[in-house]
């Protein structure tokens, strides 16, 4: 996990080099391959798919996405794995990466903004409404977010 985040940071910094950015990006993306340490294979595939389908994601969104999927990967060993399947993701016209899950109690969203923060929202059929922002981006926070999303 830490190694991967370090890699993402290095990839980002080197990729921003005005002179050699493209070369670094090419080299690093080749070396990154398709594996992401710590992610369960299904979630590893999902991570790759999302990056391929949404090429405009910011570095912040990529890092937060990895953290989120890592948390999904961790909790899949603790809860019913079938709970991990029924969700959707998409980007909207505000360039937010949105995860959506519907339950019989209501709708749940995780919004990864292009920068700054992540938002968790729940709208219940009973009209209960929860909106919470996450700014710290530590692993405990993501694990809590993952539990909220699936339970």
């Amino acid at each position, binding site marked *: 996990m830490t190694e991967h985040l370090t890699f993402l940071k290095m990839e980002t910094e080197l990729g921003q080099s005005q002179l050699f950015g493209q070369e670094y990006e090419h080299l690093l993306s080749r070396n990154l391959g398709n594996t992401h340490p710590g992610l369960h294979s299904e979630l590893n595939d999902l991570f790759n798919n999302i990056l391929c389908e949404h090429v405009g994601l910011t570095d912040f969104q990529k890092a937060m996405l990895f953290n989120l999927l890592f948390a999904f990967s961790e909790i899949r060993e603790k809860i019913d794995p079938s709970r991990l399947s029924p969700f959707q993701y998409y980007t*909207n016209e505000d360039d937010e990466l949105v995860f959506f899950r519907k339950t019989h109690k209501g709708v749940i969203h995780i*919004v990864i903004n292009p920068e700054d923060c992540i*938002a968790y929202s729940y709208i219940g059929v009973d009209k209960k409404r*929860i909106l919470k922002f996450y700014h710290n981006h530590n692993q405990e926070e993501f694990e809590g977010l993952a539990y909220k999303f699936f339970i």
Partner: protein
Amino acid sequence: MPSCELGYIPERLHENDKPIISTFTVGEELYYRCKPEVIEDPYKTQSIAELSHNRSGTGQSISLPNDVLYSIKVDEDFETYVDKVVCTLVIRDLTPDNRYDKWFEQDKNGRVVCANIQLIHVPETCMYPHCVFRIWLDGVLVTMDNYKTTLGKVNEIRNRLRFEIASMIYNKEVSQAISFSDI
């Protein structure tokens, strides 16, 4: 005042000389035209700026739910939106002066940014019941043209506004009083 030149729009919906009704009524309905998937996932609304609805009126009916499916754009070569559905919202409560007028704040780099969302009756020549949820950011009206440089720059407030609108659509009601918790 220009008159409606779209022959398929019923006369009862034409603006003509009818007045703007600046207040709303508890129990009044708003009709929102959207893609079917928005009912399922209310975060899929196209935009939170200039979100249009039709108002029903109370006592004397101003419009019917399906009226919102009429196209009132002269450059559209169809009469009704066949791929859209009607979402009906009921107004549950309002301000003491019978308006929907909510405020949201965000601390951004040590400065408090304020957003205000209001429901306003904005009649169109061919659609008298037309209303919009209009948003101001620090006093600047948010439009489709300045969206990226206004709401596009304040993630938390944008998230709060989208949440407010998504809640309306999902719960099918407009409420001045209902807020949300963060736990």
